[in-house]
């Protein structure tokens, strides 16, 4: 039976706070050293208390786990080490009961080489329906020049299969053969898998590696028109059969190239803004707002029903594909002194270690994440400042177990520590004895409490998820200043009024955000003339600042500090 989604507002994903986690490393309930759904259910109260509203689960399907679950061997069941399909249903119901939505992965570019489809394909004769589920060639010269994504591991996008006596195509690891979307049967199977999870009541689907679905010779095999046609078919099926669900595109591309993934509001509801993330780190290290303002200037408008997904860190490396080679070198020098911190084209470190565990820097970057136009995505453990383990292979440095308390295995599992899927972090700075949820809950001044308060504050104002963005240009480039504005009555972002009227019309929200990217105190004068007569009210403490006049508005910012100021009309203030 088809279950309804849990959200009531069709645009709920714009106001959401996403929290990315891996069932495998979040909480183990049965002492086998591997996280599971019953364990996750037991931690839902924590997540609800944190204030996140949508849980993004990394792949939890049957898999050989050679790519952390992105090598799927069965699309419609649960990896037995994490639980059963009934456990998943219980989790989904428990999350919905707490008003939290659930986003899962739809990994359709490729499967595991252990998937029954691939096993059948390699044994089937060329041209047969089974064989056609994947992309085969007698030569590895087809699609020449297409970039290799996992360049540290793979030397070619083609791998010879002795059984099939042919090369098969893979954009990622060689054990992840790409599905052949030129075969209509593949699309039908993908739709079946999608419906399976949506019928259970899942609220969202992250479309993994979505630019690579279709291959054509003489192209980069990325973002082809045929790929967009497939996305539109998925979206049409969702719109026709379900309500209040959403899709999130993983397209690691420049903003103008990601823009087509929104289509005319008929492709993906959301897409990650990949290039913004490294530039936030770059701006911080260079103490210069230019990298941020520059990439946002290159970001085209998107349809009103669409949204950017913003993040500081995730389960992969801090990807540096969307920067110039000079910028990449700078980032390596700035953030990965030890070569072991690097993998592929990126840096495999968590948020806190990237920022030298500096609380002010962590807060500053989170303030940008929470106030920029888009839906913020937190990576599990970053809310308590968890560290990483660069001695683990691949990107597993940032996939260590959640640190709940200072007990054995950080409270993640009661198993013999040697049995854990990944060891818990034990170094003197970030080790679970000092960095854990229990101690931060007890410490009113902890990063966890700060994060919880900031999330709660953001949720009070729809402007953060739905409003327009406008940068100010003060002379001091160490200061990033921008206005967010939302008028619920406006038919679209583009049609939103500008000027003083936008603040005084009813129900509008106008917020001035000012961030000091420097390690030293900074003065700044802002041109706020159009808001003359308004009062900026500091939002965290509800503190009124001096009235804005037609003169430059002076502010002084402490090192790495930020202000969120709500512009209020003087007439309406209660006190």
């Amino acid at each position: 039976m088809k279950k309804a989604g849990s959200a009531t507002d069709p645009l709920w994903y714009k106001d959401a706070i996403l929290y990315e986690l891996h069932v495998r490393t979040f909480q183990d309930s049965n002492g086998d050293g591997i996280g599971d759904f019953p364990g996750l259910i037991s931690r839902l109260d924590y997540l609800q208390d944190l204030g996140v509203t949508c849980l993004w689960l990394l792949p939890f399907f049957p898999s050989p786990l050679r790519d952390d679950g992105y090598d799927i061997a069965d699309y419609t069941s649960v990896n037995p080490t994490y639980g059963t399909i009934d456990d998943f249903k219980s989790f989904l119901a428990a999350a919905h009961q707490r008003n939290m939505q659930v986003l899962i992965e739809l990994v359709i570019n490729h499967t595991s080489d252990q998937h029954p489809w691939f096993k059948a394909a390699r044994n089937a004769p060329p041209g047969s329906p089974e064989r056609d589920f994947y992309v085969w060639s007698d030569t590895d010269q087809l699609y020449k020049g297409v970039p290799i994504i996992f360049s540290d591991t793979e030397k070619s996008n083609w791998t010879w299969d002795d059984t099939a006596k042919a090369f098969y195509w893979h954009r990622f690891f060689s054990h992840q053969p790409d599905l052949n979307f030129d075969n209509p049967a593949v699309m039908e199977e993908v739709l079946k898998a999608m419906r399976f999870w949506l019928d259970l009541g899942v609220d969202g689907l992250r479309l993994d590696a979505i630019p690579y679905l279709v291959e054509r010779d003489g192209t980069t095999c990325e973002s082809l028109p045929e790929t967009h046609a497939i996305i539109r078919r998925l979206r049409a099926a969702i719109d026709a059969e379900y309500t209040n669900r959403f899709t999130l595109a993983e397209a690691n591309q420049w903003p103008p190239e990601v823009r087509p993934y929104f289509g005319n509001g008929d492709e993906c509801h959301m897409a990650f803004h990949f290039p913004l993330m490294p530039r936030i780190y770059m701006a911080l290290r260079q103490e210069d707002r230019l990298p941020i303002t520059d990439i946002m200037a290159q970001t085209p408008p998107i349809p009103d029903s669409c949204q950017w997904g913003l993040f500081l860190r995730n389960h992969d490396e801090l990807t540096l594909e969307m920067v110039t080679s000079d910028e990449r070198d700078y980032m390596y020098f700035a953030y990965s002194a030890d070569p072991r911190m690097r993998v592929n084209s990126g840096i495999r470190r968590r948020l806190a270690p990237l920022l030298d565990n500096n609380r002010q820097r962590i807060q500053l970057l989170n303030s940008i994440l929470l106030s920029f136009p888009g839906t913020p995505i937190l990576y599990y453990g970053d809310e308590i400042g968890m560290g990483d383990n660069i001695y683990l292979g691949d990107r597993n440095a940032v996939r260590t177990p959640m640190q709940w308390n200072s007990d054995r295995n950080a409270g993640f599992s009661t198993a013999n520590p040697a049995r854990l899927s990944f060891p818990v972090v034990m170094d003197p700075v970030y080790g679970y004895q000092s960095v854990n949820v229990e101690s931060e809950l007890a410490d009113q001044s902890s990063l966890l409490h700060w994060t919880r308060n900031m999330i709660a504050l953001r949720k009070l104002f729809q402007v953060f998820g739905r409003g327009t963005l406008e940068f100010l240009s003060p002379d001091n480039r160490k200061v990033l200043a921008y206005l967010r504005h939302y008028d619920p009555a406006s038919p679209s972002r583009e049609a939103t009024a500008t000027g003083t009227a936008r603040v005084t019309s009813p129900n509008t929200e106008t917020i001035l955000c000012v961030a000091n990217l420097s390690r030293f105190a900074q003065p700044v004068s802002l041109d706020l003339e159009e808001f003359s007569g308004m009062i900026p009210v500091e939002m965290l403490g509800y503190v009124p600042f001096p009235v804005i006049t037609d003169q430059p508005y002076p502010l002084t910012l402490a090192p790495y500090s930020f202000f969120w100021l709500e512009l209020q009309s003087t007439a309406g203030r209660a006190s």
Partner: protein
Amino acid sequence: MASSPINTASASPESDMPAESSLLVHLTAVSPESLEPALSNLALAFPNQSFRVAIPDIAPNLTSAHTFNTLRLVPYTPPAPSTTFWVLTAADYFNTYRLAQEHNASACLLLGADSHTLSPESIRNLASATLSHNSDLVVSHYHPGPHEGLLNSAILYPVTRALFCAHPRFPLALDLGVSLRMAERLATQAQRFTAANQEDALLWPVSEASVAGYTITETDVPRRSAPPPATTELNALLALIAGSLFSDIDTKASFWQRARNTIPPRALEIGAAPTEPLDVKAMLESFHLAYSNLHEIWALVLPPHTLLGLKRLSVMPQEAFRMADSLWARIVYDFILAYRLRTINRGHLLGALTPLYLAWVASHLILVHSGIPPERHIEELALAFETDKPYLVSRWRWPDRFNP
């Protein structure tokens, strides 16, 4: 909305009826013995107009039905039954909208228990305001004695006024007029509770109307006897009412933190001086006992400055006992915040509020018996809540324990 239809049957003949009003009157709780007087007052209120009167679960075998030929009785079996009669409940709002839909009503009057004590004039005023097209919510303004309705005066009125910028003096009034869209909105809220078998849950129509941007008006109801609450145990009553209000505040935080209108000063009635003797001894004893026993719990909820204020209060003699309005406002605001944060078990939290409330009541009554008109003090208190609203907003947004 649940789809079960309301079981209704017409009790009066269709013929010889004057023009029928689009107003539906819903007597949400009426006992068999008070039905006739209630209908009699309704008939007197509108001698030349016919309208429907919905009555739950009462057979229309009235001895003098002919007397009420302008009334078209609509007995019905409530799809959402409520066992609480002293206040309007989720079930009442849910049933009202269902009835309004079934009978194509454009507006409804909800008259609570003991509605037979409402004068025809009061009913007429309520109905006129409801049908005026300018009002989505018409709230009764009662005139209780100096010793009555004090929970409303101490918490419900000042908090609702300050947070939701709404003027009704009785946010939990027992007699209301609602437009069809207001009835629908309330029914939608009510359904959240009725679907969870919480038919007796309280709703807060004033804050609901404020959030929706609907028009709210007040109508004078000079006389009306209030039905006794289900329990006379103050702890339980305060927990029920304040708990419901605090939950509602939590739900609507994104609205009230941005609501900044100020309420114009109310024209105050002087009212009669209290005739009852002043007896606050038990209240003060309760407060003093709690000051020794509950201090540790209060310390979890209240900041040092407030605790200092309570310490000073605890050593005041009865003659000089006076709780400052701003102290009470901050106490209530800090309890609202602690309720949201679940600083301690919510039941225990509200229990710890009771002796503080009694201290406020004692202080208020001492003041009133000294010659200060009660309404003047209530208005001053409401102003103190408005003045200190930024305190609640800042505490809400940054609930750090390290505060003044």
